[in-house]
């Protein structure tokens, strides 16, 4: 079994923060000619893309263009779908995640996921957050676990709202709180990358803005990739945007990747311009 090396401390981000100067970001994930297949059907074609560290990368595009499929390939989630396979290379700190010898459980610990619909386990708030560390064989004692749960809930901007009811069921929270609980659950195992698949599509505008603010805070520690239908959300919340669309063969392909400001003010490709100005299809 191949092992994944632990990422080095983020010296570059620290230096950038100190000097106030932007440094070219190191890529945490490097996709090279990635195609995703479901049986004989190609859902995503030949995507080459770098996901920069400590930034938020948004993947946008019309329904059915393979955004979620591509996202799910980044932490081997598609392994669970019969007939699904990935071609090309997905390099994570130099290790090809598509290599069958790489343990998918370890991949998912390093690269966590938050789903479209908040899906807390039917357990207490505390146990939702403690679940991942426990399954991963958390070595500390009760106090250390308490601290880990508190730290995760704080980072997910949920602690103040739930600290007095940690034993209440997670499912009793509001939609926005449930989604932040899922984020706390994802970060409790100290991942490196967080994948978000339409995390706000079931939330109201205020809860949505809260999640976006949270993403902004989280990117100091984590790298985030978000799939969203909501162009405004990509424009507001991301640093880089990748635009996917569907080709004649109905497989999604990457049209353009650019810093978000550039993509939303002066895209290079006509297809991108048409899509973001609502002239698509």
């Amino acid at each position: 079994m191949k092992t994944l090396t632990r990422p080095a401390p983020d010296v570059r981000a620290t230096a950038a923060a100190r000097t106030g100067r932007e440094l070219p970001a190191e890529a945490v994930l490097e996709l090279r000619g990635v195609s995703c297949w479901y049986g004989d059907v190609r859902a995503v074609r030949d995507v080459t893309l770098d996901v920069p560290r400590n930034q938020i990368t948004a993947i946008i595009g019309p329904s059915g263009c393979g955004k979620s499929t591509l996202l799910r390939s980044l932490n081997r989630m598609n392994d669970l779908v019969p007939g699904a396979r990935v071609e090309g290379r997905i390099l994570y700190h130099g290790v090809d995640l598509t290599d069958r010898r790489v343990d998918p459980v370890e991949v998912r610990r390093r690269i966590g996921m938050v789903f479209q619909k908040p899906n807390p386990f039917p357990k207490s708030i505390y146990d939702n957050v403690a679940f991942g560390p426990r399954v991963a064989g958390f070595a500390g004692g009760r106090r250390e676990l308490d601290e880990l749960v508190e730290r995760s809930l704080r980072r997910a901007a949920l602690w103040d709202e739930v600290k007095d009811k940690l034993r209440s069921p997670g499912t009793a929270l509001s939609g926005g709180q449930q989604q932040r609980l899922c984020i706390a659950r994802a970060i409790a195992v100290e991942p490196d990358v967080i994948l978000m698949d339409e995390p706000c599509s079931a939330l109201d505008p205020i809860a949505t803005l809260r999640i976006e603010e949270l993403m902004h805070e989280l990117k100091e520690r984590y790298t985030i990739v978000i799939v969203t239908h909501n162009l405004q959300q990509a424009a507001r919340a991301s640093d880089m945007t990748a635009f996917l669309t569907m080709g004649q063969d109905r497989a999604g392909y990457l049209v353009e990747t650019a810093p978000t400001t550039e993509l939303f003010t002066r895209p290079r490709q006509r297809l991108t311009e048409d899509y973001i100005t609502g002239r698509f299809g």
Partner: protein
Amino acid sequence: MDDERVTDGDQGAASIRRAFDAQLQDAKDDVLRLGGLVEEQLRRAGQALVERNVELADAVRWGDADVNELQRQVNLEIAAVIARQGPMARDLRELLALYHAAAELERMGDYATNIAKLAQQLAAEPELPLFAQIPRMEELCRSQLRAAMRALVDLSEAQARAVCAGDDEIDHLYNSVYEDAVALMEASPDRARQATHMLFAAHHLERLGDRVTNIGEDVVFLATGRIEDLNP
């Protein structure tokens, strides 16, 4: 009035959009910086005119590139915030007002440069007609500009209206320069060139004052949502 209008200095409820608020503040800071730059350009242009200082006038002419560059940056910054944040209501008005204020400031920078050019042309003259109104106009323009920038920071409708009202004195001084310049030309036709140059300097200052008033109107728009002509 039974609706709850935004009043002077009202920054609204605490926002959960901290990233957006930070971007808005950055844009505002840059416009204020642009205001400071233009004020300094004007001060130096006025000094160069009075002291017949060619080097200082030259520095003003070179300095205009900085003003233009900062305005260009502000434009890009504001366009990016509008494209990315989808601002509404007061936020949208603020960004539009800042965009317009930056354009007015850039134009004021051009007037300062024009005055610097006149200073260079007049520097070779053996003697200058003394129009005491001109240094006074230049001073007034700068204090008006500072007041307009303060009104913009404070989002103060009252301060903005005061700025607009203050333009009358600049207009009055300009009219007085006009009369004096014509009188000088009539009395000493050989000094018509000098008098015309001074009249032009005064004219640039008068126009600059109008641009300051436009910023005052922007602030009123920002505070109330109403477009008013405050310099009829």
